[in-house]
């Protein structure tokens, strides 16, 4: 981290703390720092968040004013940030697949079915309950490995499949009352 980044971080945190103190806390809490109701004085809901924002403000200012010279360069964090952003997109993509793959599969099945099915009623039954989790999980695991390796390999796909099957064995098979993602949301 360079000296400039450190100043930017400190000032950014201080600005966030000031905004929290001046805007967020007053507008988003019903009681102030100290409240007197029926002659009883008590600490209000704004007190604790104000203390928290105070920590951030002091921390931000100390960071910005720190004379310590930090080491490092901008390149490594920037590369890591780019990598992290792509990995985040893969992870979110995986969970979106998990969320919608099951209902989409049911909708596709219903196209040719005499009696339409409803995913909500099938969320605990095989194979429907696994469709979203398996597809989304494999996507997230394999995608992340492929990102780190810079290419998609058969080994990455196998790790994705093995990992997801392992999780099913761990969470779903021994426990009747546990729901794999995303079945609790339906």
């Amino acid at each position: 981290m360079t000296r400039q980044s450190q100043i930017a971080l400190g000032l950014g945190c201080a600005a966030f703390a000031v905004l929290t103190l001046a805007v967020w806390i007053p507008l988003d809490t019903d009681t102030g720092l100290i409240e007197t109701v029926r002659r009883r004085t008590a600490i209000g809901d704004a007190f604790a968040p104000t203390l928290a924002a105070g920590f951030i403000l002091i921390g931000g200012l100390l960071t910005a004013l720190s004379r310590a010279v930090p080491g490092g360069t901008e390149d490594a964090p920037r590369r890591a940030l780019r990598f992290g952003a792509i990995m985040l997109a893969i992870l979110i993509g995986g969970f979106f697949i998990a969320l919608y793959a099951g209902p989409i599969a049911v909708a596709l099945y219903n196209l040719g079915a005499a009696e339409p099915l409803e995913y909500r009623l099938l969320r605990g039954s095989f194979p429907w309950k696994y469709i979203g989790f398996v597809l989304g999980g494999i996507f997230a695991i394999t995608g992340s490995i492929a990102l780190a390796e810079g290419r998609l390999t058969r080994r990455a796909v196998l790790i994705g499949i093995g990992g997801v099957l392992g999780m099913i064995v761990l969470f779903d098979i021994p426990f009747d009352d546990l729901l794999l993602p995303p079945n609790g949301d339906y």
Partner: protein
Amino acid sequence: MDALGYVWAGILAVFQGPEAFALLGIGVSITLIMVISGFVLGIIVGATPGLGGPIAMAIALPILISAFGFTPDALLPVMGFLIGIMKGATIGGAVPAILFNTPGTPDSYMTTLDGFPMAQRGEARKALRIAHFSSASGDTFSDIVLIVCAPSLALLVEAYLDLPEKTALLILSLSFIAAVVGGSVGKGLISAGLGLLAVYVGTGEDFYPRLSMGTDVLNRGFPIATAVLGVLIVGAVFHQMALAHADRIRSVTRPTAPAEMGASLEWPQIRRLLPVIARSAVAGTVIGALPGIGSTLAATIGYATAKARYARRKAPGDPAFGDGAPEGIAATEAANSSVSGANLIPVLSLGIPGNTAAVFLILAAESIGGFNPGPSVFKFSTDSVNPELVIAFGLFTCMFVANLMNWTIGGVIMRSMGFLVRIPKHQLLPVVLVLTLTAIYVQETRMEAVWFTIAFGVLGFGMRLLDISPLPFVIAFILGGKLEDSARQAFAATGGDAWFLFTSPIAATFMALSVLVVILGLRRT
């Protein structure tokens, strides 16, 4: 029940608790099995670079809670398993450090400095045995100190500290953690402030859930598991993956095992190392008892102290520290292992977590219920049985069972785990990531919890990139509710005195110390 009765009840709770199976007609307690399993798993994850105790605890906790339920009977098996992981991971970390120059856990980095040169000299077996002996010695010493100190400290707190003093103590703990964890006081305060702010979202005493921006998503607040696992585990996985990616770009070569394991350790050599181990164990225990100072710093201090002493006294032919001195391994491993028991002192006596392992123990206690770590645990009530005290002595028993495992089978298991270093980190961590998020989901059963965890993970990743330690965030998140409740009660009890933190000498001293640690931290950096 008298004090000895409680100790005995705790021991019986472990050995005669719910039965897992019968062996030759004798019932084997499930708690015992869980401690042993946790210990073995701990060695495995400790020996696997990129994993570690916290990750294993994070994944295990929801599975354990699902398996054992939310009854008081679940406390000892679940917490015993976590204690087993905590202890196993500490010795496991030394294996790749010695054999492959790759620390399995951050606190075994100093072990590489002398362990790897010894392995290269063909003394790998001896180096591993020194690491194991020192680690087990430090751990045992630390546990004895815990058992003696935690109840005494809790009794002192209950006798002398009222609500304002307890509030001031919480503020002192937060300031201390913010000031000493990581390299910068300012960043420590930012981390603690963010943790406090996060825990206050969607909570409060009014009908309107504060800081929720009027949304349904935020009005229930953030579940503790999403914040803790997000910042600690998901953030760490993102960071480790980014590092693995950078290593791939730099074409870092994979480690190879030493060809010759060499001779074993003999008693005269052990006797020579005993003073080094003793000094490091004391240093590690003292450091471990302070909240927020982890085993990595203990290892560094233990190593540096031993190095300075060794340089003055070593014989001309002996290798220097950094060139394969057995004393270097002994000093590091005794210091980092002696942290594990001692850092449960603030947890059990004050309810203040000092490191990530303690965070997971508190998380387990809060999830299951029936055990609230803090001074009230150590109420030696004679007219009725205090079940929390029985659990506390049960936990101490679990620690000694894990120690026994460490002394007996720990070394053998540890030495057979060298192959784990070959598991590529970047292929293992995505599985850990999805496993963690799945574990969160099965506990909370709503996708919101997954999104919260990912969001906290991004925060944890960002903090690591900016050299901000995530530990003050997590500890502040855990202590935030307690701090506010305590302040509200103290304020009400003092009749609305705005200066309630400064009217009693003890509270005022704690507040002065809070400022002092920040100033000293600033001078240090």
